[in-house]
């Protein structure tokens, strides 16, 4: 890793700081975030290292990996950080920037689930769990995933075959639209 003012992408770090509302430089690498992270075992860069790479402006290394997609947003790190580094928000920001950059992440399932979830909101205003699961299985190619659970859930009334659609759908589309507009105009990240 060659460090220089060129190789350390400070602009990217500033974006992360703006989006997350938290300072990356504050972190002194105590490792408490990684110590308490329930998902750290599934990550190739544990949370503290994600921040460390950010401090060095090495975002490509972060986005290339699956760490950010394995964050469960449990907020344990943010809660316990001695320096008030809101790492959960940093993770949010990194995921957003990854999407913006069409990041070459190794993790596709989590991203797929997220995309479907947001699509559902845009389409239905509310979450449509049955559809979410079904489409996910189809799109991820795991046709048989959780197949055994389906009938049971349906019988228990937990998977509704038909979705209760919001009556005010026009509003939700407007919100999506305005946000896209703001981004196009550079008014928001």
């Amino acid at each position, binding site marked *: 890793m060659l460090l220089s003012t060129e190789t350390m992408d400070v602009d990217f770090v500033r974006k992360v700081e703006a*989006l997350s*509302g938290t300072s990356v430089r504050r972190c002194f690498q105590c490792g408490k975030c990684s110590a308490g992270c*329930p*998902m750290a075992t599934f990550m190739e860069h544990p949370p503290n290292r994600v921040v460390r790479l950010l401090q060095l402006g090495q975002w490509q290394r972060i986005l290339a990996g699956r760490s950010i997609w*394995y*964050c*469960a*947003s*449990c*907020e*344990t790190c*943010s*809660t316990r950080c001695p320096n008030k580094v*809101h790492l*959960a*928000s940093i*993770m*949010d*920001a990194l*995921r*957003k920037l990854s*999407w913006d950059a069409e990041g070459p992440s190794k993790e596709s*399932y*989590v991203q*797929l*689930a*997220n995309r479907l*979830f*947001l699509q559902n*909101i845009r389409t239905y205003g*509310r*979450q*449509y*769990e*049955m559809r*979410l*699961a079904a489409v*996910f299985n189809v799109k*991820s190619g795991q046709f048989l995933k*959780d197949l055994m*659970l389906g009938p*049971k*859930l349906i019988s*228990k*009334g*937990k*998977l*509704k075959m038909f979705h*209760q659609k*919001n009556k*005010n759908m026009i*509003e*939700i589309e407007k*919100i*999506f639209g*305005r*946000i896209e507009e*703001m981004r196009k105009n550079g*008014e928001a*990240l």
Partner: protein
Amino acid sequence: MTPKKTLNYAYYPGCSLHASAGEYDLSTRELFKKLNIGLTEVPDWFCCGATPAHNVDELLSLSLCAKNLELAEQVEGDLAVACAACFSRLKTTQHVLSESDVKRRQVEKAIDAPVPLTGNVKHLLDILARDLGLEQLEQAVTKPLAGLKVACYYGCLLTRPTDVPNLDCVEAPTIMEDILKAAGAETVAWSHRMECCGANFTLSRPGVVIQLSHAILDSAKEAGADCIMVACPLCHGNLDIRQKEIEGVYNTEYAMPVFYITQLVGLATGLGADKLGLDALIVNPMPLLKEKQLL
């Protein structure tokens, strides 16, 4: 029994309570009715965006929540929220937008309305333990849950992060235990009451959920609990719906019913199984409730 003051709330059930967590919605409405607490559902509420939204698009997440807060303004009273995730998102939105003018302006532009930042967002637990009060709740109990050992599971989002939900102590909350004690149950001390269950990885990476939820179930069993109590549909899904699967993977047996808080408190106030949606639970609670003579 009548409360000293009449309590009325706007109610934001959230998507899950209208789908996979129907029993949570049902038991909440029934319990509140029993306790003479008014609930009026926010008309035309939207999804709060939950974890996926803030995970990849904070502005969207904030805007969705802000919209919901705006919608809730139409209804008299504080906003009551049953789902821990919805509660967390709504509270976080209020917090973030009151901290950042930039983000507030962006969100107001997105929803084309001012964001109400002053309205109270309250979780059911808060309403039961504080607005109604433990004393009042105790008085409403007609069938104390004597002999039922409950592991209260808080999960991640009810208390975290510091200063945002402000529901209870961020590392050692007791609000669930307080409520259950008022309901006459016994609560167990256990290690995994605030560990993550795997949350929405249930869809994308169920293996994660199986591993994490297994640890939670194990801990509850080791602590001698008869059942687990939750206040979050996602936690419930992972612990209850996937319990059988976890038992299979780890070659063990829990048979550990997972209740919503409203179901257990409802039982204590004398509500019947039908009004609490007990039949919707995947792990059958009936043998346990019968054994403890709570039905």
